[in-house]
């Protein structure tokens, strides 16, 4: 027997499967099922921890064959440089094709205009939908988890989108057993969320157990930040300190990666995945509540953006 190319847990003979084993098996099942039924799948890859775990599971699902679909990055132009570097290195290692949908291109040629507040998360929708249409992608993998937010808690693993990319919460297909229905009409596509049943704690437990590499900003580092809306924002090209704000150097890490202008850091000395896992276990704030300004706008913020075809 050869050494395993990817570390994994082995089958217990007497005891029940562990939580991570059950979740891993379910995600792999979803990948295999939807990739087999789809014509041109694509995986949304942001370099964030959920998309990294998703890619890791995809690699396991088809091993020793390579992942049989490309990845798509919706590039806001407000990326952390560490994340872009990580993205490029990862796709090279896995021998997969990278497609990029650039928000900056849309701003440059006038198809989109910058928002007054300068944030770009909301601007990702149009480039994403255009990339799906141009790539004729019928199965689109996303790393959303149902524990993230109340609207996501109601979304299916297989989520049908019309040609405008919209999610209709009133018209979802019932999802029974592990029988997934990916059928759709021309112009429609399905979003597939293989991590639906994972929690933030599961993700970090799995990253720790499997030794999965993440962009370095997930771990403690020193950074010049300002305090805004109760979060630490990195000072740089996309965030300038306002008059009443003082720039401070703090030891921080990020819990999500996104648009640099509205993704906040938390103060933390956690330097390894195991440290982060220990922090997550005792955390008293949900990850979105803590660090994403765009979800705080209204109680229904996420639902509205999902209806518009956001991830």
């Amino acid at each position, binding site marked *: 027997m050869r050494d395993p190319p990817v570390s994994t847990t082995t089958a217990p003979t007497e005891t*029940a*499967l562990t*939580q991570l084993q059950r979740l891993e098996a*379910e995600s792999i099942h979803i990948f295999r*099922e939807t990739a087999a039924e789809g014509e041109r799948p694509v995986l949304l890859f942001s370099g964030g921890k959920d998309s990294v775990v998703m890619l890791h599971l995809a690699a396991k699902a088809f091993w020793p064959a390579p992942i049989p679909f490309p990845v798509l990055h919706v590039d806001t132009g407000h990326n952390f440089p560490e994340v872009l570097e990580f993205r490029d290195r990862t796709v090279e290692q896995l021998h997969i094709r990278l497609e990029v949908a650039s928000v900056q291109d849309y701003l440059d040629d006038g198809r989109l205009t910058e928002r007054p507040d300068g944030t770009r998360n909301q601007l990702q929708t149009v480039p994403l939908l255009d990339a799906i249409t141009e790539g004729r992608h019928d199965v689109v993998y996303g790393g959303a988890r149902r524990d993230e937010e109340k609207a996501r808690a109601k979304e299916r693993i297989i989520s049908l989108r019309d040609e405008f990319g919209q999610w209709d919460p009133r018209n979802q297909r019932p999802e*029974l057993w592990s029988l997934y229905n990916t059928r759709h*009409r021309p112009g429609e596509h399905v979003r597939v969320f293989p991590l639906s049943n994972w929690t933030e704690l599961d993700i970090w437990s799995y990253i720790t157990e499997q030794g999965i590499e993440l962009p370095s900003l997930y771990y403690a580092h020193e950074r010049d930040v300002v305090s805004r809306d109760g979060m630490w924002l990195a000072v740089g090209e996309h965030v300038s300190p306002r008059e009443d704000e003082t720039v401070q150097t703090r030891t921080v890490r990020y819990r999500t990666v996104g648009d640099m202008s509205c993704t906040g850091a938390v103060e933390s000395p956690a330097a390894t995945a195991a440290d982060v896992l220990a922090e997550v276990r005792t955390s008293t*704030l949900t990850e979105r509540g803590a660090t994403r300004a765009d979800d705080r706008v209204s*109680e229904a913020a996420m639902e509205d953006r999902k209806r518009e075809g956001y991830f």
Partner: protein
Amino acid sequence: MSTENTPRLLRIATAGSVDDGKSTLVGRLLHDTKNILVDQLEAVERVSRSRGLDSADLALLTDGLRAEREQGITIDVAYRYFATPARSFILADCPGHVQYTRNTVTGASTADALIVLVDVTHGIVEQTRRHLAVAALLGVPHLIVAVNKIDLVEDAQDAFEALDRDLHALADDLGVLNLQSIPVSALRGDNVVEPSQTTPWYSGPSLLGWLENLPDASQLTRSEPFALPVQTVIRPQSAAVSPEFTDYRGYAGQIASGSVAVGDSVAVQPAGRTTEVTRIDVAGAPAEHAVAGQSVTLSLADQIDISRGDLLATPAAALQGSKTVDAVVCWLDDENPLREGQRVLLKHTTRVVRGIVGSLDGRLNLESLAAESVGAFELNDIGRVSIRVAEPLFTTAYTQSHALGSFLLIDPQSGRTQAAGMVQDDSVHTPGVLGSLRADAGEWAI
């Protein structure tokens, strides 16, 4: 990694009718197990105050969509995640209106245990019968009835014990597998997480106490014969992640039941041949042995034509293919009814085949528990049908294997999921609601 100290997952679903306090119970379960984070609780307190409530309305924790908040009801299945030191839970929170029975079916299909709420001041109502029937139909391994609002009745012990007797009688009629009822007050938290002082006459565990000690489905299916529906064939050829795997050929799928070891004989269907397992990869790494619930890739000794939709199984338990499927279906489509002669797609395991609906052999009347003759099945109807399919399917009775006995009906035009199907085998004695829908030479058996 040690499996002894690792939390195990239990999938549960909740069902109740309007105002039974289901959202409050779920909120209570999350709150009392300390799974509500500060910002979530603050948001709930803020909204409760703006509505003029004195204390935090825990039901707000689970009402996710805007329309639900506006109407104060729950529309769609919502999934919740919470953990205790003993175990982790995935909870499918299913709305209770009559028109949402399909949601209960959906939630129950993956549940290791179903929690049904009954309001002790109302007793058993139509929705209770419906939810217990769904639990019986779907073969949910454990049914827990939370007898709620126990704080509102004068003689709580008598009320609970009378209801408990009625529930067990109903469960026997319906063929529910295991029923346990627990007196609770979701509002006050009695017997939800901690055993309550206010019910000294009840000596059983709290709701959470029960849930923490139930076995999960992957344990229950492990003793069944081995079966693996093939999802995809993995043949990397020159694209392999490493040159040593260019000749690799593996059949990938999730083990539906039983276990498999290197050296085991397996029957390949529909090819009808038997071969030997030469290699097992579990999630991308070799293993000697694998069990139900694991996603694996098997390599076999002989070159046999195997493709997606085929079945690898223990030779002794090999199934016969059939082009007719007799089943009980729950109709889920709110736009179109099911009629005789209708064309459908049938998804069974990893195979999708074309089908034509034959006779509708009776709809279940949940009041009388008898089958009644109807011309069409409407939304939420549960009834017996016979379906002719274009290619043979290797099915088994749902009562014997959920994985090999379940299917979906899909509208070929719109792609909508129209029905949940459970294969019936009349040669096997089936008690309860499923048995009452037995087709006997055109007569509606009761």
